[in-house]
């Protein structure tokens, strides 16, 4: 027999499964575990390529990538995690939708930043195409993989904004969104910040 409980926001939700979380949250954690391995594989591949390249052969990312917009994108993702958490804790549907809308807007801002960055890198005299060098290939694959996760999250949030979601569904979805935020952190450090000299 399934059990229900009332949380601090007043929503009725399924009782936690054995182990502390609900079935939905457990499923999401399991998905995130497999997805994290995908990110880990890409990051390891990037690291191996960089370590094996001659010191002078690897382009200085700070010379090719604009740090300020990337930092702004990072702050947008951090802020979106805050608004997602606030959506999770919101007391009613209206407040939850407002915070979800804010998260949605910040996700769109991040994607817009990525699109603008790609536009700058692909255009101009010193364009950096996908196959320009190993750094370019790794950069587009890793950031593109992450941007697809953000896009999936934004699409999911779009559906949630149009539906009558409860706090439990928001919490489960929030796990995914925080994960996307957490995975951006090693990408930002490894690709944008790691000094070559």
């Amino acid at each position, binding site marked *: 027999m399934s059990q229900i409980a009332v949380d601090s926001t007043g929503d009725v939700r399924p009782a936690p499964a054995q182990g502390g979380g609900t079935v939905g949250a457990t499923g999401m954690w399991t998905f995130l575990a497999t997805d994290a391995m995908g990110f880990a594989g890409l990051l390891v591949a990037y690291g191996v390529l960089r370590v094996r390249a001659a010191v002078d052969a690897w382009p200085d990312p700070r010379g090719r990538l604009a740090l300020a917009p990337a930092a702004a994108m990072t702050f947008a993702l951090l802020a979106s995690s805050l608004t997602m958490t606030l959506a999770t804790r919101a007391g009613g549907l209206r407040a939850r939708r407002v915070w979800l809308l804010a998260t949605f807007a910040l996700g769109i801002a991040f994607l817009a930043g990525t699109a603008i960055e790609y536009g700058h890198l692909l255009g101009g005299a010193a364009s950096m195409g996908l196959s320009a060098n190993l750094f370019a290939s790794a950069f587009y694959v890793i950031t593109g993989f992450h941007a697809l996760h953000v896009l999936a999250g934004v699409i999911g949030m779009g559906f949630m904004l149009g539906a009558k979601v409860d706090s439990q569904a928001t919490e489960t979805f*929030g796990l995914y969104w925080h994960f996307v935020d957490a995975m951006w952190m090693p990408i930002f450090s490894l690709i944008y910040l790691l000094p070559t000299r």
Partner: protein
Amino acid sequence: MTNDAFVDSQSPRSGILRIAATFCLLVVLTIAELIVIGLDAERAARITALAGLLMAKVGAVLAFFMHARANRRAAWFALVAITFAAGAGVVLLLETAYRVRVS
């Protein structure tokens, strides 16, 4: 009996304060990263500092935003993978620093 796995037993006000503090911590750590790479310090030292800041940021998101403790069994499984992803970044950061030191 409370069985709210994620919202904990804390009051709403203290919960909001904790969330805000976590966000501020993440912003500060990110600013620290940006400051570290601009420092006129040895490259290996900067990379080691970046690795430490990265671990702190990922740890803060996992602990305070994702409430990893609330869903222990599945979370531990995921935590190993996520830690592996972030850990790969940390190891590679340090490896790069080490490689420059010996060459």
